């Protein structure tokens, strides 16, 4: 909503500067005077929170880099040295490690918010796309950062991911080699990950500037989805109204952040990462950090080949696809109505989408073959080769009976008793939820936009606010900073 600038330089220096480099004017127009819809709720406060997260990660990261040693021999010990021997090193490192999780928490919430309120719709498509770019860069940064402490999960997690990239047809193997810097994950890999991990946050900062720029052309969306009609009635200046509201939200966020840093510094990590990396010993369960779990679940949900395409490749394609699909979301959602407040059916579907996304996170954390619940008590199955040559398996309740049968078989039968389980697998849940994830984007949103009959929307932001408060008279905002006049 870049209107005419109202900035007036006051001092001699700012007047001089304004005609040469109007940077103060830019800041004033963007963060002081910027007209912002007055009905934004707390879901809109995450922009400020994310800016704080980025700054925290960069500042703590620069300090950590002063002490970290990117070598397979010393990396693990150097991180522990930071925790033990550097003044406040434990604090800086806990903030940085916890900060990664907090950053993702703070990016997921406004992403869902954007999906609910249709923030990606015309004219904010670029804004949304740049957001997805930032999110992708964050994932790359976080993945490489997780490798640096060189624990067991660092090493084996990076092996899983580089293998996935290697599975991409044609270009995969080349990208994989460039990523690893050699035939195996080692010193070369660690050094280039460190280098890129230091670089990418600054790339993120650059894209953030574009993101803010793209925000300031159309201005903020708002919970009603109705565009600003009359800046005087519908908006308030960003400062002090939103600086104080965002400020409050940031402090609340920092409380959650601090609780983790000081009281649960390891709750977001994995015990195995306190074991130094050992390429020869694979951990029993390799799991990524929590914020990547839903994608991990989608990857593992595909256990069947489709025609000539192997399961693994489909899994990789769907995993990357689940993120790439966000880029075209503005065009998949065909509804003209932005906010789902006025789309009764879409709202239910969105709730399902949120549940599916969180559910996929749980699927990613659990072994796909373990059971969520049992259909029946575990039984025993005796598997052997019958005299006819066919592989046979018999089910027993009782161990003694199974053993008696096993003893009666000839030694050539090669019998073995195994547990026979029957129940609902995590795998099935991840398949169902993955299906919903894609259906939501590819079928539900495009179709609903055409067939759904939206509820009536308020005529304007000011109107909806008035309705909410039930006041008939149009009240005038008082206070020097709110120049709106009574009509």
């Amino acid at each position, binding site marked *: 909503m870049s209107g005419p600038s109202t900035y007036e330089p006051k001092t001699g220096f700012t007047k001089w500067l304004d005609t040469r480099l109007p940077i103060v004017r830019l800041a004033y127009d963007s963060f002081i005077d910027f007209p912002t819809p007055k009905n934004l709720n707390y879901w809109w406060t995450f922009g400020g929170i994310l800016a704080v997260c980025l700054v925290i990660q960069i500042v703590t990261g620069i300090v950590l880099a002063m002490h970290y040693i990117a070598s397979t021999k010393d990396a693990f010990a150097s991180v522990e040295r930071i925790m033990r021997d550097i003044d406040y090193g434990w604090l800086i490192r806990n903030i940085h490690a916890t900060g990664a999780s907090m950053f993702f928490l703070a990016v997921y919430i406004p992403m869902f918010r954007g999906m609910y309120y249709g923030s990606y719709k015309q004219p904010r498509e670029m804004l949304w796309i740049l957001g997805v770019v930032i999110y992708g860069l964050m994932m790359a940064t976080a993945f490489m950062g997780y490798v640096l402490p060189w624990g067991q999960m660092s090493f084996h997690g990076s092996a899983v991911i580089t293998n996935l990239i290697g599975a991409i047809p044609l270009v995969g193997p080349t990208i994989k080699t460039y990523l690893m810097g050699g035939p195996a994950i080692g010193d070369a890999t660690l050094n280039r990950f460190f280098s890129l991990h230091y670089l990418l946050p600054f790339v993120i900062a650059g894209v953030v500037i574009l993101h803010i720029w793209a925000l300031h052309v159309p201005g903020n969306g708002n919970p009603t989805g109705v565009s600003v009609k009359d800046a005087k009635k519908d908006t308030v200046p960003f400062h002090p109204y939103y600086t104080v509201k965002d400020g409050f939200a940031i402090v609340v966020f920092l409380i959650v952040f601090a609780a983790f840093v000081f009281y649960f510094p390891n709750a977001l990590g994995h015990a195995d990462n306190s074991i130094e990396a050992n390429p020869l010993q694979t951990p029993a369960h390799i799991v990524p950090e929590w914020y990547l779990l839903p994608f991990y679940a989608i990857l593992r949900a595909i256990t069947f080949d489709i025609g000539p395409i192997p399961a693994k490749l489909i899994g990789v394609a769907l995993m990357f696809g689940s993120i790439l699909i966000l880029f075209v979301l503005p065009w998949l959602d065909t509804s003209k109505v932005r906010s789902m407040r006025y789309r009764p059916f879409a709202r239910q579907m969105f709730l399902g989408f949120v549940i599916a996304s969180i559910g996929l*996170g749980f699927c990613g954390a659990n072994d796909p073959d373990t059971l969520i619940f049992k259909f029946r008590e575990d039984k025993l199955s005796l598997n052997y080769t019958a005299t006819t040559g066919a592989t046979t398996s018999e089910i027993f309740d009782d161990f003694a009976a199974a053993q008696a049968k096993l003893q009666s078989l000839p030694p050539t039968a090669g019998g073995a008793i195994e547990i026979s389980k029957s129940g609902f697998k995590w795998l099935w849940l991840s398949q169902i939820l993955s299906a919903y994830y894609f259906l939501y984007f590819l079928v539900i949103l495009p179709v609903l936009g055409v067939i759904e009959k939206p509820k009536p929307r308020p005529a304007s932001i000011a109107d909806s606010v008035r309705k909410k408060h039930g006041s008939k008279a149009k009240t005038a905002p008082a206070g020097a900073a709110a120049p709106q006049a009574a009509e």
Partner: protein
Amino acid sequence: MRLNKLALAALTALAVGAAALPVIAQEHAAPAAGGEQHAAGGHELLAPTGGWSHEGYFGSYDTNSVQRGAKVYREVCSSCHGLKLLSFRNLGEPGGPFYEARWPNPNDNLVVKEIAAMFQIDGVDPDSGDPGKFPGKTSDRFPNPYPNDIYARVVNGGALPPDLSVMAKARHGGAGYIYSLMLGFVPPPAGLTVAPGQHYNAYFAGDTASSWSGDPRHKPPGGFLAMAPPLATDGLVTFDDGTPSTKEQMARDVATFLAWASDPKMETRKKMGVSVLAYLAILALLAFVSYRRIWRNVEH
């Protein structure tokens, strides 16, 4: 308005879910400072009577227990296990077991000096330049008991005794795991074959399936490891404070010592947390009051 509430409820659920996810998903992750009851191999870990003093928001290490544990480590475990991330001086730093206010510099701490001198450290004779073994100094690191990993494996039946510096962080259950491991060397149940050189332990993070001839649905918990029970009999160590050195006592003390070794800054961290959170709470209150004031006359 109602719609808004619904949306809010959904997104609150999301936020709570997102916050809870890491905790639930990583239900096996090591707790902040080790300890805590965690199911291992399908059954609860053992815990000493009275639990662990270092757990909880305000918990701090039981200094006497850490001191005794340091002796158990030195006299029993140090012949096989290193503690390479720790220096002797750490013992005398604030939060450490032998810290005393009269020795703000741990290198002056007589107790620490004495302990360091009990270890023989590889070094070079400053006069002759000959390599050799010398009594440890406070600035030295705890020595590795073996010249190299291959040698360590050869003398331990093929298994490498892991460094214990971060052991309490590296196992689910932390101190509780170490305590249970020390006391978990029970006779193997009938039907479980223990290979020569291996020892059955009901709490070891391993698997017994392939050595179990009974009903696979009821395989025994735990696993096999190459370490013989290190605290098999009472009285292995004579504690300086006169505490009777039962197996349970030694196990508890060495577990507390290793919990401290894994997270020596825990007490500083928790203490600072209180002031940081109090500060932020006041700030939040002020911010909220300002928010209400500034928005007082704007309908939104």
